[in-house]
């Protein structure tokens, strides 16, 4: 005899093979994470917080805090929490030199987490983020498992063919091999047309369950994932602003903002005399955002907030706020031509037409990405009267981007430590109506965000389509 133990051994080997196949498929899962860059105006500091990618859990979580020219030295208290329970803390000591200051935290499971930053002066800023799980799609399991099982069956068929009394018995495991191959090939071919499950975070509210297994409740939605518009209430408080975001359909606080262009909220303020602040309010609670406004002027500011709710779609909310301050009004800026901004010479050329091209020439190729872009251009107009008030009412409020040239195959976009771009930053915009517009061009150099204001008169023949 002796055939029974041998068959038992083969069976064991086949099961082991399937199990090992499963393990291989798991390890082959594509890297699912990417760095998360979030600009935060925390108190008087403008910081960029970079949450480095996490591939497996438990694992250390590296958080880089990028400071800029003029950022005060001090200590930031960082903490991460899941389920409302803080599990890891660290302190990051910011030096006087602008640059990257790192902190190391620990995350122990995939799912929705919250990073909090506290400078000791006010409520902590919290950034919701997702620690991704390695997810093996069902078709991948079928493909790998099917091929492993086919191999095991083939081996079994060979042995049976040689050892059994009747060679025809080998047809039984051979049939198994054909079935397993069919499963594997079907899985592999269907994978291209299988829609991915709705993404926790960007489409669905993330929970520990759906981050760990997005296929468990994988049902494509019958309705659009996008959510209602927000209502914005802006209130001045000592040192800054308090923003309350409410759902336009239910009135509930909006607590599902996504990081978009490296911030939860892009808040642009235009002062009564035309100074621009591009700030990034910090989340201190559901729908509750705070931002510090450095050295305000007295009068009416134009307020514009850009944000993205879960489900997608950029929203622009505009408003006004009256501030008390003592800053002297800024003079009206020139049009095109050379000038020096914060010690950096820059030459602005404006090529009128439909569309109009605005190019800033910095003499050196050492510009840094800011908010994931090479440059930003804010346009408001046509304006009449005080800039703040008329910018708030202006029919055109534009935020134009100059992209970082993309690098093929690079998952993570370069952060601010890469000072290799420029020297030209170019924008193209189609003005809808003739008149006098204000432009503010922003780019980063030497960890300083340069804001180049300008005035442009769009002639009647240079506007419209």
């Amino acid at each position, binding site marked *: 005899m002796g055939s029974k133990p041998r068959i038992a051994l083969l069976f064991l080997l086949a099961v082991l093979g399937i199990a090992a196949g499963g393990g291989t498929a798991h390890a082959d899962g594509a890297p699912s994470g990417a760095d998360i860059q979030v600009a935060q105006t925390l108190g008087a500091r403008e910081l960029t917080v970079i949450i480095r990618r996490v591939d497996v859990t438990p694992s250390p979580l590296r958080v880089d805090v990028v400071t800029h020219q003029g950022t005060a030295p001090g200590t930031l208290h960082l903490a991460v929490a899941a389920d409302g329970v803080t599990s890891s803390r660290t302190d990051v000591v910011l030096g006087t030199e602008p640059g990257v200051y790192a902190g190391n935290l620990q995350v122990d499971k995939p799912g929705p987490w919250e990073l909090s930053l506290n400078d000791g002066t006010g409520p902590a800023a919290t950034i919701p983020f997702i620690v991704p799980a390695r997810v093996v799609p069902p078709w991948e399991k079928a493909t790998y498992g099917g091929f492993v099982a086919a191999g095991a069956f083939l081996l079994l068929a060979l042995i049976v063919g040689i050892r059994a*009394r009747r060679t025809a018995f080998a047809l039984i495991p051979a049939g198994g091999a054909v079935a397993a191959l069919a*499963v594997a090939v079907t899985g592999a071919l269907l994978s291209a047309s299988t829609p991915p499950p709705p993404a926790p975070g960007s489409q669905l509210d993330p929970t520990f369950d759906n981050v760990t297994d997005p296929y468990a409740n994988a049902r494509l939605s019958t309705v659009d994932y996008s959510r209602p518009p927000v209502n914005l209430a802006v209130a001045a408080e000592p040192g800054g602003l308090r923003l309350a975001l409410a759902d336009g359909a239910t009135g509930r606080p909006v*607590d599902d903002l996504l990081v978009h262009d490296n911030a939860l909220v892009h808040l642009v303020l235009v002062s009564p005399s035309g100074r621009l602040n591009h700030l990034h309010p910090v989340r201190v609670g559901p729908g509750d955002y705070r931002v510090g406004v450095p050295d305000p002027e007295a009068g009416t500011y134009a307020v514009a907030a850009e944000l993205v709710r879960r489900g997608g779609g950029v929203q622009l909310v505009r408003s006004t706020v009256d501030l008390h301050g003592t800053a002297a009004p800024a003079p009206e800026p020139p049009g095109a031509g050379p000038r020096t901004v914060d010690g950096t010479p820059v030459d602005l050329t404006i090529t009128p037409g439909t569309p109009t091209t605005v190019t800033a020439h910095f003499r050196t190729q050492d510009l840094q990405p800011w908010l994931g872009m090479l440059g930003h251009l804010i346009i408001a107009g046509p304006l009449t009267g005080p800039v703040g008030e008329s910018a708030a009412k202006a029919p055109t409020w534009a935020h134009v981007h100059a992209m970082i040239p993309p690098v093929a195959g690079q998952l993570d976009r370069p952060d601010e430590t890469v000072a290799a771009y420029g020297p030209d930053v170019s924008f193209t915009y189609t003005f809808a109506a003739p008149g006098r517009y204000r432009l503010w061009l922003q780019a980063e150099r030497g960890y300083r965000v340069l804001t180049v204001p300008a005035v442009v008169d769009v002639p009647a023949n240079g506007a419209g389509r």
Partner: protein
Amino acid sequence: MKRPTLLIAVVALIVAAGAAWLLWGGSDAKPTTQQAVSGPYTVQFSADQPRIGGNTFTVAVTGPAPEVVTVAPVMAQMGHAFAPVPAGPDGAGHFRATDVALPMAGQWEITVSLRGPGGPGQVVFPLLVK
């Protein structure tokens, strides 16, 4: 002639084991339990197999004992809020809301509101209805 019963059994077993492995985890619907913290309250929320129609939610609160607990569902994508449903006491620190209507599939958000000597508290739990 002896039939290859054992061989057929082995092949059938392997195929069955493979199928079971493939379907593993796909069919078991776990009760969803989530936790959040609001002020002095730590709130655990669970819903057994959320579905279209009447649902039962259980809320467990640690911290100061709340007097009033309500659950208010919102269909986030449609922008439709429903009136809060009171959750009755169900043992120490436990509350249960029965027959909470969720009329469609998709992403729901359940706001659990607490009132009591510990002050007001409010936490939101996402819930996916199949």
